[in-house]
């Protein structure tokens, strides 16, 4: 092997010595040196390969960040070198990425979507970094023993990729021993000529091929990998966020006194103080009263604000008492002038018609009408009117043919009559210009104290609102919404719905209804399967933190006891305090009449949470109840109380068919219209078959119909007179004992009693709802008035709708995952496989030529 200069240098031959400027000083002749060129020799390298372990990662990250900042500083000063400028692109990209994530973070409204913006950004950069390491560096190292992403530090301390530039690879940084070791791993014969050259070339080739593969694959890999990372992280982040949200909400109630201090209404209080201080001991005007009301009702809901206004007006002295003094005479004369202005009276006529100020004042004085505390102005009006009338009469008598005469009488009447019935006349309004009411010091203090109570309540309500929103709002990512999602998703598995069934039924709710009916039939026909499913549902429902028993109002209740307690105490405290200041209407609006009403603000707070919980739990209870009814029918057990010996077999079959469908698909409107069902019109045929009153028969969960379906469609009709049919259907679905297997499944659950109550409530309110077209279709003939909201919440979501939505969600996410998961996995497979084709050397070089 011919040794070249560099190789000699690497081997450390004595010929190569480091240039020493001091030694060269003696007899140094640059021209001679340049002419002979003997002096020009490579300097020894101070570079080295970077050999990091996992423990060096933190210090590496630290050093990289430090270098980045150094590069940035040098760039700002215009002193950066190429290597430093190379780092700017990475920094800029991350800076821009952060700007995008921050902007999208600001636009998103829910915690998860906000966090996912940064997770998306992080996962993208992580994917950019991980892909070449995972798909190229690791397989290449395992297969060939070559680190294709080896880094080195050059003489200037700059970190670079070893195989970055294939026209300049600093091979001297690898010792013979290291190269030979790699060669051994590659299977390069040990006795090969120019072995090091051969290994180096092979390493170079592998690295180049991997770099090219990196460029070709990372475009596909990075977005897919990033999306898959996000997908995988979504669930843990949701769980984490959920726990965080629960903790946050619980902390709100736990630290209630501290939390309410965060919401100060000091500005509002200051505003009222200023207003009261400026008007204390002064006559009140309607404007002042309005300002007081406006300030004190700031931020309140309309109902409470109305009540507060009413109470304030009661606290303030009456605004219907007025003072009449000499100012009134001036105002009355001005009113007269304004009133007669359209007649364009000459000054001479005007002086004759319109009484002067003194005349008015004297008249009032003479009659003792210049007094304070006037409520009734009839005498004043009479006095002024007679003055005016007298003048007009005199003028008319003196000028009988004056065309103004009629007009004067008409305009006089305008003063004492209002255009709008019931309103005060213009004269009365003028007389009422000075209110007697004075804002006393006592009232001022009372109002200040009242506002303190109202503002305190507002602060408390904000905290209660936050708690209720985080836990129960009808919005994405609330605790209740998350629970709904996770529990309903988990129901697909026990129901045994397969991916293929999801795919086939996802477009149509009716297909899902049929699928569900088949699934339910199959489940209830098998004892073990039924037990398993009931158990799963029981476990899932028990996870609902909202289904929590607490001691409330003398009995055990299910719901959020802590919240209820806080709401009750908050409103009780506020209403009692307000009552002390005579704010009785406000107290009633807040806590209800005698704290019992159902239209108070307190009730709205409680009802909001109760309704949200009711809607969710009813939907799950409905599935449980559906399974129970199916089970009872399949086993023909606990159904005799409806399907008894007096009911014809055909009606039984019609009833069972209807109920099975209703349980899966019905909405509140179906119950409200008392079910529409086309039945055989001949209920009581003359020739009854021997099995006319026999019990239904079932096989593998399904009813074996003997009569149902034997008639042509045109022979069927809706029997709206058969009021008992509705009652029977309701009772079959919601009355009677549960099937023993169902009872066994839920007997130890926290919600057993609540579930039994739920059945009773549905029977009572949905069965007791009066429908004008079928007034007698009632359970036990009793009417139980209820709101449509309550009936809707009690019924919950129809199982076919719930499952249909779930199926679509599952299908969408699975489909996406299938497409991109497969693409990602294929790409990884192909990239790893390609490794086996890298580093192939031509035969000639293998022979050492």
């Amino acid at each position, binding site marked *: 092997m011919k040794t070249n200069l560099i190789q000699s240098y690497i081997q450390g031959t004595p010929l190569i010595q480091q240039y020493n400027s001091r030694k060269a000083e003696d007899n140094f002749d640059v021209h001679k040196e340049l002419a002979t060129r003997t002096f020009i020799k490579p300097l020894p390298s101070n570079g080295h390969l970077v050999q990091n372990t996992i423990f060096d990662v933190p210090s590496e990250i630290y050093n990289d960040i430090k270098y980045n900042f150094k590069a*940035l500083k*040098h*760039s*700002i*000063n*215009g*002193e*950066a*070198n*190429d290597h430093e*400028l190379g780092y*700017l*692109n990475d*920094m*800029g*990209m991350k*800076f*821009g*990425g952060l*700007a*995008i994530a*921050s*902007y*999208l973070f*600001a*636009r998103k409204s829910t915690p998860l979507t906000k966090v996912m913006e940064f997770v998306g950004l992080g996962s993208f950069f992580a994917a950019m970094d991980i892909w070449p390491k995972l798909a190229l560096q690791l397989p290449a190292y395992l297969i060939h023993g070559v680190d294709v992403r080896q880094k080195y530090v050059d003489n200037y301390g700059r970190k670079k990729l070893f195989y*970055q*530039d*294939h*026209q*300049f690879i600093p091979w001297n940084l690898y010792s013979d021993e290291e190269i030979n070791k790699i060669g051994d791993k590659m299977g390069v014969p040990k006795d090969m000529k120019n072995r090091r050259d051969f290994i180096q070339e092979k390493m*170079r*080739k*592998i690295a*180049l*091929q991997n*770099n*090219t*593969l990196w*460029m*070709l694959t*990372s*475009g*596909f890999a*990075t*977005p*897919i990998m990033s*999306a898959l990372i996000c997908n995988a992280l979504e669930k843990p982040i949701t769980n984490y966020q959920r726990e965080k949200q629960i903790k946050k909400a619980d902390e709100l109630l736990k630290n209630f006194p501290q939390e309410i201090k965060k919401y100060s209404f000091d500005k509002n209080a200051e505003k009222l103080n200023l207003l009261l201080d400026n008007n204390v001991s002064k006559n009140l005007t309607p404007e002042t009263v309005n300002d007081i009301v406006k300030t004190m009702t700031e931020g309140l809901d309309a109902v409470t604000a109305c009540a507060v206004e009413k109470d304030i007006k009661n606290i303030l002295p009456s605004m219907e008492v007025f003072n009449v003094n000499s100012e009134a005479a001036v105002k009355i004369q001005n009113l007269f002038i304004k009133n007669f202005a359209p007649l364009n009276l000459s000054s001479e006529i005007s002086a004759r018609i319109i009484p002067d100020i003194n005349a008015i004042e004297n008249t009032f004085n003479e009659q003792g009408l210049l007094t304070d505390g006037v409520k009734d102005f009839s005498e004043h009006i009479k006095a002024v009117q007679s003055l005016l009338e007298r003048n007009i009469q005199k003028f008319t008598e003196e000028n009988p043919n004056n065309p103004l005469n009629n007009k004067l009488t008409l305009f006089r009447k305008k003063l004492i009559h209002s255009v709008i019935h019931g309103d005060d006349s213009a004269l009365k309004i003028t007389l009422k210009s000075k209110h007697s009411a004075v804002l006393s010091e006592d009232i001022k203090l009372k109002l200040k104290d009242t506002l303190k109570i109202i503002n305190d309540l507002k602060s408390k309500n904000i905290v209660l609102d936050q708690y209720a929103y985080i836990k129960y709002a009808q919005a994405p990512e609330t605790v209740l919404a998350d629970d709904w999602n996770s529990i309903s998703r988990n129901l697909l598995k026990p129901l045994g719905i397969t991916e293929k069934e999801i795919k086939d039924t*996802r*477009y149509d709710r009716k297909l899902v209804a049929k699928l569900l009916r088949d699934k339910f039939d199959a489940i209830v026909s098998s004892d073990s399967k039924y037990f398993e499913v009931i158990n799963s549902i029981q476990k899932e429902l028990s996870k609902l933190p909202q289904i929590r028993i607490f001691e409330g109002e003398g009995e055990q209740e299910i719901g959020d006891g802590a919240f209820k307690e806080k709401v009750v105490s908050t409103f009780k405290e506020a209403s009692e305090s307000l009552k002390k200041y005579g704010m009785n209407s406000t107290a009633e609006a807040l806590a209800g009449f005698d704290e019992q009403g159902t239209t108070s603000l307190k009730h709205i707070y409680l009802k909001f949470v109760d309704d949200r919980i009711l809607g969710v739990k009813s939907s799950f209870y409905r599935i449980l109840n559906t399974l129970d009814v199916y089970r009872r029918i399949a086993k023909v057990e606990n159904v005799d109380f409806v399907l008894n010996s007096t009911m014809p077999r055909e009606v039984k079959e019609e009833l069972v068919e209807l109920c099975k469908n209703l349980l899966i698909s019905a909405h509140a409107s179906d119950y409200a219209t008392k079910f529409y069902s086309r039945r055989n019109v001949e209920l009581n045929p003359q020739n009854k078959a021997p099995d006319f009153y026999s019990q239904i028969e079932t096989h593998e969960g399904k009813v074996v119909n003997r009569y149902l379906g034997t008639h042509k469609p045109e022979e069927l009709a809706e029997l709206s007179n058969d009021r008992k049919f509705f009652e029977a259907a309701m009772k079959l679905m919601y009355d009677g004992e549960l099937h023993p297997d169902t009872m066994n499944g839920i007997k130890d659950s926290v919600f057993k009693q609540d579930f039994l109550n739920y059945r009773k409530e549905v029977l009572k309110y949905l069965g007791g709802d009066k429908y004008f077209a079928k007034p007698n279709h009632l359970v036990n003939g009793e009417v139980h008035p209820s709101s449509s909201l309550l009936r809707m919440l009690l019924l919950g979501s129809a199982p076919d709708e719930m499952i249909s939505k779930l199926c*679509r969600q599952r*299908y*969408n996410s699975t*489909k*996406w995952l299938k*497409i*991109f998961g497969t693409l990602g996995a294929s790409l990884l497979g192909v990239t790893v496989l390609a490794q086996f084709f*890298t*580093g*192939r050397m031509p035969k000639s070089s293998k022979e050492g030529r």
Partner: protein
Amino acid sequence: MISPIKNNFNSIRFGQNDDREKALPYDKDTLLKNNLSTRSRITIDKVTKAFTVYPAKGLKGSINSNFYEFLTMGTVPYLIGSATLMAVFNSANKYFAPFERAKASALGNKMALGVLFYGLFKSISKSFTNIPVRLITGVDTQLPYAKVNYQLQETPEGSDLTSIEYHKVGESVDFTRWDLLYKDPKTGKQNEVFDKIAKKNGLGENLNDSDQEVKPIYKEILVKSNLARTFSSYMWAATGVALAFQKSWENFFRVATLKFWKPKDFVHSLKVFKDSFVESAKELYNGREHSFSKIERYSGKALLGLASLITLLGIINTLHITKKPSKISAKDVMDKNKESVVN
């Protein structure tokens, strides 16, 4: 004046077939005009080769593959990645049920537009730095040149030994291609480029060694403009994404079509694009006007403001040249005719 080092080997011919050599567009490293035509030609050449010649060479493990080719191949993941990112948010949508499809597509379309705007805004916004810097300092930081690259023979029969690479004079601050900026000495205007830059930057006219005086300034501008261009272009790219996420684009996506053979629909689509662009820009600036959240109301303004500020600061920093030669008075200049002793 020290003459620049010239490439004395330009006349060397490699390979066997002289006719083929002559067919090459350049026979030596050649400075190109920085205009739209050249830039487009270079872009097309680089993108084409990034997808064809360079990967082929790389996968073969060619001894001639170099860092330029590796960097040029960076376009491949950039373009494929953009398309894949669009696909990630759109390609599965067609399998969804109609309502979900509509919801997913609304987001997917915005994502795709965001990817497109990211690239466009990033590319276009580079001019926000390049143009003012060129107009004020006279330094064209993007001046391209064609480099004739002589390669090693890979096979005994191989004759394709020359390749053309497109670089920029100032792409390296350590090894700037000063030699290309000098004009032919025979014309007597060897330093013309440097003279112009010197004049524009207030160094004076008729300088003996304008090149020596300008080079530090030139280098400083290269470094600083690189910083300004990088950060501002990524900020404008972010602004592009934010713009794409405005609600106004939903109008455009309802009528969007690329079917140019249906001129009526296509023109209408372009018109709605223009309107949506204007509306979304307003929307971005105004934010959610009725929102209680200040962040929602001002985030758009903040992003636009930050992008503008970074661009402006970057340009100001670039124009603030610190490497100008100090003006020394005549008495401080050493007289060459007098003897001096250096200790």
